[in-house]
């Protein structure tokens, strides 16, 4: 079995485009969540939750060549910027032989929601499609990010749209890990992306999973593991990775940023809207088994922790059962970033690897008073904590009862 390493990372976060913006935003302790103006939610005046974490700084879309850009909705454009940064760090030129042989696995919850809305607005008004842009479908299709990235960067291997709602980004990384570990490919571009749209926020609103008590205090929500949490806040962004087999990376003298050691994915059969502690625990154990690692070797867990009442409690319970009370430091980043949905598994993995390399842990923002149901864990809160760790876990869960856990490690030859 091959070892799988990370040779490039890229980010577009609610703080703005680039890994540096993500790192600096988290370091500042600022929240990227804001109140949406009525006009920004105009199609849905009935939303209870008025908060969101859209990009504070827009990338310059004109950097994407027009004929590539025309088939990209917002989500594929965000994916492009994250992927371009990852490929540059990995030293891989678009159109090169090394990329031609690579695969791509990139996820999102849906295709571009704003493009879907555009198509159906014209359809609903007069059953008209013929005036739509010719490339509109390519923005809507569910593998829009993956297919557009393959075209844009000259990737000719297998192309997978990893669609698993909020766990899409982590699933894409898992698919990449499995393909490289087994040896079917030696290089992959992986990640996840999501664009904010009021309809996305509405889907959380409908099942009462969105935060609505902090509409006048946007920086106070979401509140992962906190006693006063009341739901999540939808954001947007993208996270991208170049994954390679260790031998492929060493062969071309690429910088190695971290190792992906294990991955597990399972499904909670009991509920589509959330996973129970039992299936989460099984997934955590499965990921450790896949890495042949023991729980006491884990120095940090980057939790999924969206700030919903039910979800955070189940995650805390599973972590407590796995680690006991003397386990690793645990934090989640959705208090800072909001829930970037299909991007979150990848984007938060970028942040996690960056923290592992920088030997610190960013805390869970808004965790002022831990919920008794989430206690018994070493929850990082307050300010940044200097902390050197060798191995960590990244949790990512989703509607559909889907659980994904990655095992990440500091790279050693």
């Amino acid at each position, binding site marked *: 079995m091959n070892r799988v390493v990370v040779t490039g990372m890229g980010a577009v976060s609610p703080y703005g485009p680039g890994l540096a913006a993500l790192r600096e935003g988290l370091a500042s302790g600022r929240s990227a969540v804001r109140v949406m103006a009525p006009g920004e939610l105009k199609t849905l005046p009935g939303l209870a939750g008025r908060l969101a974490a859209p990009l504070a700084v827009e990338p310059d879309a004109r950097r994407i060549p*027009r*004929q590539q850009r*025309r*088939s990209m909705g917002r989500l594929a454009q965000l994916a492009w910027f994250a992927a371009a940064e990852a490929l540059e760090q990995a030293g891989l030129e678009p159109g090169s032989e090394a990329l031609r042989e690579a695969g791509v696995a990139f996820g999102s919850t849906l295709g571009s929601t704003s493009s879907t809305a555009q198509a159906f607005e014209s359809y609903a008004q007069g059953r008209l499609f*013929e*005036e739509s*842009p*010719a*490339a509109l479908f390519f923005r809507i299709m569910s593998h829009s990010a993956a297919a557009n990235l393959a075209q844009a960067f000259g990737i000719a291997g297998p192309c997978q749209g990893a669609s698993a709602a909020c766990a899409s980004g982590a699933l894409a990384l898992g698919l990449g890990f499995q393909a490289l570990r087994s040896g079917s490919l030696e290089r992959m571009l992986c990640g996840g992306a999501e664009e904010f749209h009021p309809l996305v926020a509405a889907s959380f609103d409908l099942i009462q999973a969105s935060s609505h008590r902090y509409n006048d205090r946007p920086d106070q929500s979401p509140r992962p593991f906190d006693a006063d949490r009341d739901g999540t806040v939808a954001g947007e962004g993208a996270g991208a990775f170049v994954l390679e087999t260790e031998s492929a990376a060493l062969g071309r003298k690429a910088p190695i940023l971290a190792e992906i050691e294990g991955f597990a994915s399972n499904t909670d059969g009991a509920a589509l809207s959330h996973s129970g502690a039992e299936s989460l625990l099984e997934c955590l154990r499965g990921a450790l088994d896949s890495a042949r690692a023991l729980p006491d070797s884990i120095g940090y867990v980057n939790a999924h922790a969206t700030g919903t009442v039910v979800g955070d409690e189940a995650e805390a319970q599973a972590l407590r059962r796995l680690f006991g009370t003397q386990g690793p430091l645990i934090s989640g980043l959705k208090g800072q970033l909001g829930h970037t949905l299909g991007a979150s598994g990848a984007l938060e993995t970028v942040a996690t690897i960056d923290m592992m390399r920088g030997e610190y842990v960013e805390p869970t923002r808004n965790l002022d008073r831990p919920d008794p149901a989430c206690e018994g864990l070493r929850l990082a809160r307050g300010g940044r904590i200097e902390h050197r760790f060798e191995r960590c876990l990244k949790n990512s869960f989703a509607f559909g009862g889907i659980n994904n856990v990655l095992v990440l490690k500091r790279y050693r030859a």
Partner: protein
Amino acid sequence: MTPEETLQRVRQILEEEFELEPERLAPEAGLYEELGLDSLDSVDLVVALEKAFGFKVVRAHDEERIRAIRTVQDVCDFAAEKREAAGPAA
């Protein structure tokens, strides 16, 4: 609409729809080889022409004619022709 006005309008469409620099849009400039448009662009071009000049393309009827368009001037000729056929009320 005079031929000059038609040319001006067509150039404006090419500039806005396809982000082309105005100085490249000489009447004899080739849409595909020279300006880099492709088949998906030609679909969007026809929709833009329909809106700008007030005519409707009938795919089965106009397909051959559209395929014969190679230059900026050809676009102008096609637009003028369709506009005339649609009549002054269009």
